[in-house]
């Protein structure tokens, strides 16, 4: 009987089976990995070289910042290996990704650990470190009767990991044919190189199982490889047919690494780079170079954005989805890229659902800016008031001086001026709460700049932002309340209003209720709340509006809500989408809201309000401000 553990250490556990630790079959793999590493090296240099010098500095600094180091490690582990983002939304799909990524990662780590423990000299380059740990089981012979518990543990772990990966591969093959069962309605069309890489990826682990099974009686194995070895011996009579399988394993690995840079699987290697750049605070500046290049190659082409995009209520619009935008960018197809960039509604749902976090709306804005930012604009009126016309600079509160003390400024914005019922309701709530406030753009104000930024007109936006900022900073207010989420986003992100708190009126009213300055009367009605894109995904405000709605009635759920909420179709983000297409999107969004038969639809954005009001014939649409105004008594 084999002793369970042997104390003698002079007898080697592992003996080199192949003298010189080399065989020709490793060549395809070596050629593949060397090619791939060279390509990656050049790509990395390109990305870094195309960053601006300040971005490069930020990247370097992030490597010495302990908080960011921890965040980098955590993000890379969770996003690249465990794929927690996919797990949260679609568990089966998450399992598939983590099985392949984390399982493979473990196989590589454990494989190297095994070599380090049992044949450490092969971890040096001149002793085959490039291929030896990969084909370890081919090169060694287990000394019978001298297997330690340590060795058996590795055999077991390696088999376990291999099974884990094989389960993932099995699901992946299944998904290719039946994507719906894994929760995906649409899936992308793979390109030729995608197919080569995909089929090699499918082949790698089954071939590895076969190859290692054939040599399991020589090199050791566990619950998976040993029974397989017995079965193969039974089928073939002996176990000496292993060469073709090791060749096959090496060839598919080589093929995979050669096709990798030209396929969607490039995301496996690019995603960690993207995480490092993103955590360093780098933003996209050019639609194709630097940070964008990292994003483009980090796109896994998974197609989750196909189901996310609100335009895809019509199948003909699938081609405008982010995944194809990124694909055409990668191929430098300028004509298609421009067309797709202009079509997007900028609702941000593809970004919210993207497992890699590719900010394709931002890349589209950069692409728009490449042309639109060069267009001429004339804001000379901002400097000199037009005689007899609208005075240039906005006047705070119609000339009334800002009151001293708790100074609150209300800025309605253009869209609220087009939906006067919102302004009326907000002012009523202000009065009922006894708030001392100034109405910044009562007699007309300037655009907040966000629509210009969405169109890629950065310089024009900067001009109006400066003018508005000056007006606000000079007013001496400490709180700025906005009724339009489109304004809110740009005020928060671009205005740099030091010392001034910027709030959406839902947050502000929610605070008034919490402070006891407003009392809501709860009625009978049931409401569904529509998350406006710019408020929810744009500014992360989901709870305050819901608390207000729950204060006045019963809140029912939409089919998709929160960060999966569907754009109303009225978005200012699209430059070219036709009204017919928008109508379809609006109809789809209404269906999504009405699944639980609410009495009224509530929203918190003037544009959503306007769009839904025009399209909803049966169910009335109201703004939260109206709802609060009608169910509030003065305290």
């Amino acid at each position, binding site marked *: 009987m084999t002793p369970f553990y042997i104390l003698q250490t002079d007898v080697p556990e592992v003996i080199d089976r192949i003298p010189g630790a080399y065989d020709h079959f490793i060549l395809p793999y070596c050629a593949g990995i060397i090619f791939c590493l060279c390509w990656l090296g050049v790509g990395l240099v390109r990305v870094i070289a195309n960053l601006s010098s300040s971005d490069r500095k930020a990247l370097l600094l992030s490597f010495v910042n302990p908080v960011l180091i921890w965040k980098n490690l955590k993000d890379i582990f969770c996003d690249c290996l465990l794929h927690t983002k996919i797990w949260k939304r679609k568990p089966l799909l998450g399992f598939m990704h983590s099985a392949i990524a984390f399982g493979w990662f473990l196989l590589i780590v454990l494989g190297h650990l095994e070599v380090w423990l049992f044949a450490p000299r092969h971890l040096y380059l001149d002793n085959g470190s490039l291929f030896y740990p990969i084909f370890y089981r081919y090169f060694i012979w287990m000394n019978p009767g001298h297997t330690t518990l340590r060795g058996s543990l590795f055999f077991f772990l390696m088999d376990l990991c291999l099974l884990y990966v094989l389960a993932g591969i099995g699901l992946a093959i299944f998904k290719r044919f039946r994507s719906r069962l894994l929760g995906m309605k649409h899936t992308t069309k793979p390109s030729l190189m995608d197919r080569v890489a995909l089929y090699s990826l499918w082949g790698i682990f089954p071939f590895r199982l076969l190859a290692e099974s054939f040599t399991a009686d020589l090199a050791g194995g566990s619950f998976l490889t040993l029974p397989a070895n017995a079965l193969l011996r039974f089928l073939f009579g002996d176990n000496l047919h292993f060469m073709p399988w090791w060749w096959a394993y090496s060839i598919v690995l080589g093929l995979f690494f050669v096709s990798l840079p030209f396929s969607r699987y490039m995301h496996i290697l690019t995603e960690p780079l993207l995480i490092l750049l993103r955590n360093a605070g780098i933003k996209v500046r050019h639609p194709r170079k630097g940070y964008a290049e990292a994003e483009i190659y980090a796109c896994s082409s998974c197609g989750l954005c196909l189901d996310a995009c609100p335009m895809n209520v019509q199948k003909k619009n699938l081609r405008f989805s982010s995944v194809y935008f990124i694909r055409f960018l990668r191929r430098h197809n300028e004509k298609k890229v421009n067309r797709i960039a202009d079509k997007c509604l900028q609702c941000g749902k593809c970004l919210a659902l993207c497992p890699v976090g590719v900010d394709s709306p931002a890349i589209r804005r950069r692409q728009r800016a490449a042309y639109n930012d060069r267009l001429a604009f004339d804001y000379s*009126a901002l400097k000199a008031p*037009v005689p*007899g*016309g*609208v005075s240039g600079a906005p006047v705070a509160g119609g000339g009334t001086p800002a009151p001293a003390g708790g100074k609150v400024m209300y800025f309605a914005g*253009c869209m609220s*001026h*087009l*939906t*006067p*019922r919102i*302004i*009326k309701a907000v002012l009523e709530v202000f009065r009922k709460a006894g708030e001392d406030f100034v109405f910044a753009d*009562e*007699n*007309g104000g300037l655009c907040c700049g966000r629509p210009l930024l969405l169109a890629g007109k950065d310089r024009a936006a900067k001009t109006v932002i400066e003018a508005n900022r000056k007006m606000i900073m000079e007013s001496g207010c400490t709180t700025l309340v906005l009724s339009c989420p489109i304004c809110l986003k740009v005020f928060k992100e671009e205005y740099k209003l030091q010392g001034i708190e910027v709030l959406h009126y839902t947050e502000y009213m929610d605070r008034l209720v919490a402070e006891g300055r407003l009392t809501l009367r709860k009625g009978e009605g049931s409401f569904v709340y529509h998350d406006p894109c710019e408020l929810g995904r744009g500014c992360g405000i989901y709870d305050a509006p819901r608390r207000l709605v729950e204060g006045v009635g019963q809140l029912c759920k939409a089919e998709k809500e929160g960060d999966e909420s569907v754009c109303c179709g009225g978005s200012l983000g699209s430059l070219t989408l036709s*009204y017919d297409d928008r*109508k379809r999107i609006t109809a789809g969004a209404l269906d999504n809201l009405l699944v639980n038969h609410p009495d009224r639809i509530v929203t918190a954005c003037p544009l959503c309000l*306007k769009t839904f*009001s*025009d399209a909803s014939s049966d169910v009335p649409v109201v703004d939260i401000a109206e709802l609060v105004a009608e169910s509030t008594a003065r305290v």
Partner: protein
Amino acid sequence: MAKNIIIIGGGPAGMEASARLDALGYTVFLVEKEKALGGHLARWDRLFPEGKPAGPVLDSLVGNLGNTKVLLESDVLSLNRLGDSFRISLSSGVSVIADAVLLTTGFDLFEASKKEEYGYGIYDHVVTNADVEEFFRTGGDPRIDNPQRIGLVHCVGSRDEKAGCRNCSKVCCATAVKQACELKAKFPAATVYCFYMDLRMFGRGYEDLYLKAQKEYGIRFIRGRVSEVSERIDKTLQIKAEDTLSSTPLRVTLDLLVLMAGMRPSREGTKVAKMIHLATGDDGFLSSLDGFGGMQATSIPGLFVAGAATGPKTLPDTIAEARAAASLIHEYLQKS
């Protein structure tokens, strides 16, 4: 034996066609959903271009009906074909089998509250063209309270893709100029502005009306759309617009804003068309066979159309189409 004809819609087109077909000896059933005949004409005070009162025009249309069987307060419940004839049943319980059907379902006025930026239904002193006619007809509207500054906005719900209305409504330009003059005559001290995109004064006497409005009434025409309206504490209205001829933004304070609501396909007409499987165009109006010789015919034999049901029309256009339809129906019934 006298043949039966059903005419759906008791406005000017329906009444005129009824009168003609009745005179030719047919049994005509005129179906109207309201309590009285007349359609929009019954709610109008004066007609462009000369400002002729609408009352006598309506009275003569009603007076010519002869033996026409008028079915008031009747909604169409169903309309379908039975071989070569048609069967209609009405909410009043009546059902009729007829040899020909004429749709004169007219138009609906654009709901001005849909252009929320103009504040109709939200601000106190915003009215529509129909409200102004009502004001002149009945003499009272608390919203029109001795205004000194009046603005008329053309093309509200016309030529506006965002509002889902691409078509020009044809009659609003002349109506706006007419109402501007009438308001000026009523409130002589007032300043009256017309905000227009293009002035389409195409008919006989329309250009004269336009010149008179400028020379005699001093109406101020500003080429540019109103972008938004807000109400001040004293209930006056502040409007923002652009004078596109001088490329300057404008801010004007007004006491009264009149919105020239455009013509939309009538809801009833769309409903009836669906019942009988008559196609509607992209603009929502009913489709006639073609825009030239087949204007009053449809793809369905025995089914005819006249008036604003097939697109915006002036009153003379509508009456002419009703007569054309009557003669076409006569021809059709003689052959069958």
